[in-house]
């Protein structure tokens, strides 16, 4: 199957570090980090991304805008997108799913749950 590339878009350095160390436990995974929506958009054409994990609340382009962009762009519309959200942001999660996000996790989550979820989408791809 080859190495899978996961793009993490989150403006929190500590969250990215934690997500990276969680995902590195998965087999054959390469992590690409973006600290903003813009950075994610710039990385998408450069990296062959297999899955996107995105925060909603980011400066410049937020997660919803990123999802909308990806789903409207034929190059990225099939890449699975998982939202990382926070308790109490139900409305934004709903919108994200409406825009075409595949799944979501709510902070605080158990790293194992995220690993399982990702594995599911990566295997499917």
């Amino acid at each position, binding site marked *: 199957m080859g190495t899978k590339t996961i793009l993490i878009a989150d*403006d*929190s*350095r*500590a*969250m990215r*570090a*934690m997500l990276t*160390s969680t995902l590195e436990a998965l087999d054959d995974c390469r992590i690409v980090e973006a*600290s*903003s*929506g*813009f950075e994610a*958009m*710039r990385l998408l*054409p450069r990296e062959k991304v297999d899955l996107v994990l995105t925060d*909603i*609340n980011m*400066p*410049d*382009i*937020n997660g*919803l*805008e*990123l*999802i*909308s*962009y990806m789903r*409207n*762009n*034929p*190059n990225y519309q099939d890449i699975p997108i998982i939202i990382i959200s*926070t*308790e*109490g942001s139900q*409305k*934004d999660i709903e*919108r994200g799913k*409406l*825009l075409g996000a595949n799944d979501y996790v709510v*902070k*605080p*989550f158990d790293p194992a749950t995220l690993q399982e979820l990702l594995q599911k989408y990566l295997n499917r791809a």
Partner: protein
Amino acid sequence: MSDSSASVSKAVKDFLMEAEEITDLLGSELADLADAAESGDLNPDLVNSIFRGAHSLKGLAGMFGFAAIAELSHNMENLLDCLRLGKLNLDQPLIAVLFQAHELLTSLVRSVAEGATAAHSADLAACITKINALLAPPEEQVGVSPLSQLGLSERIQDALTEYEEHRLQDNLSRGRSIYIIHTSFDLSTFDQELARISDQLKTYGEVISVLPSVGGNMETHIDFDILFGTTRQSDDLERLVENDAVTVTRLGKATPPTAPPPPVSPQPPRHAATPAASPAHDAVAAPAPALPGPVPVVGDDAAQTAKSMSRTVRVDIGKLDELMNIVGELVLAHSSISGVATRMRTEGFSRMAVELGKATKALERKLTDLQKGVMEIRMIPVGQLYEKMSRIVRKISREQGKKVELKFHGADTELDKLIVEDISDPMMHIIRNAIDHGIEAPERRLALGKDEKGTIRISSYQKGNHVVIEVEDDGGGIDIERVKAKAQQKGFVQDIGGVSDKEALDFIFLPGFSTNDKVNEVSGRGVGMDVVRNNIAAVSGMVDIETVAGKGTRFIITLPITLAIIKALIIASSGRTYAIPISSVLESLLLTEKDIRTVERKEVIQLRETTLPLLGLDAFFGIERRGERHGEFYVVVVGVAEKRLGIVVDDLLGQQDIVIKSLGEVFRRFRGISGAADLGDQRTILVLDVGGMVNEAMRSGN
């Protein structure tokens, strides 16, 4: 996260670093918010940014298992959400609660940093109760959203967050027109281009949302739809952005729900002002009567530009300390090699001694460079403290009903990071005092013919090996007669008549002295000026006061530039060896017994025009004097700020770079010692705290 592996502690460090960043930013933004509430010019971007801060902290604290921080920031977030969605008005009680919550949040984060499991639970519960009392009851949205009449395309509408929807509605309710500005940028530069165009637009109104979209040339370009609210006409907007490949489309209130689709052409057309000019477009000219001339617009100065490429690296100060210690040890190793070279020369290995001497010289030069380099990394501009100060000033002056302006000079003066951290609290205390006791109430200032607004000026500048920070207010000054009376009443002095004004000011720094009998919330936190002096002395600094009745008070803090590696004069006294930081040494004199005079049972010498008090180290430390002083001896003249003192020593052993190591809390109460240093030949000696000794000598001299 319950396992305690190394990775966890790294994770906690990551968390702390970011949590501190967020709380710092929240603090200054809250101060801005309070200012905005006063001036009535509230920028929605600011409220949203504060909300985002609380939101991020909630998620972060939740993930890392800090429940109290997560809970408090969650409640703050709720409150801020209501504020940004217009469900609450920005008023004083709300700001007060936000400040209180922020303060608690900061101390919660700090207790994580200190590894303390401090129980703030009572404070936490109280704060959350206050927040909940302000929270608006959840209201269900009724009726049709006016947004549906805008004719926003589904693609754009769906991607709006709840907040963006609210901003859209708010703009409409202010009678602004909503435009969609469609642009297309090259993939490689889109963020700068977008930031530039957003900044331009912000001078005319509010950028509500920026939605990336796909244009005809998606391999090389990214298109954007900018949702923009303004009172301007589309002509104005087109002129504003005329150099860009944009299309400006106005959305109408009464338009049927078919907005003109964003153009999808390989080369976006220029100024296709109203593509598919819907009849509705013309019909909606009415809702926003354009005001003539530039309109003051909210959000015009919020230059929320894209993150610039940063060329800085954040480093844990602990790592720099380690590096500094290694450099220090290298310096010591160099000293011993150099000692060997000298011995070889005297013992006749002359050729090898010369070669070794050359090599050590070369090593020394590189070591100096290395030391300088590491030192420079530790240096940060004093200005980093100022933001914190201005927050405090705004907060306290608001609480006290006083008007205070804070002015800064020399913010780029650099100091060792650790010193900057350690003087933060004492400076804060001095500033609190200045507002509390110094600056008069506005009415009183007006009556005195002063500007209603008081000024606190913080200036910093380098003076030789020291950095001077002055905190100056233009308040009422210190009432010296009251200070004297108090000192006598407290029994600090028997005969107040013989005390000069300058000496009297020194009483303020004595433990247990406070000119204000009434303990108040601002200055009376059970912390006196003695703590301020001690904290400053702990980093080998000094504090002086100058005051003029009716005109104001100036605190002058003199600090060494760094504490890490210093040049020291090594001296011997009563068979013991000590180090005196060279930065405090003014000169050394060789004297004989007959040069000493005794005035009021104190030994002094005449040094040019002045009388210099002498201090024997044995007497100071209460050590039994070994051998009588006979014949010649040395006096090392030391000075900090304006004060001078002669330290009597038996011998001068030379100059050396030393690394000062702290002796820890236990030894803190020993006056006159700032730490210990290793001389490189397995000998450990004490480093004299000149500032502390000078103070002590002056005090006992009175």
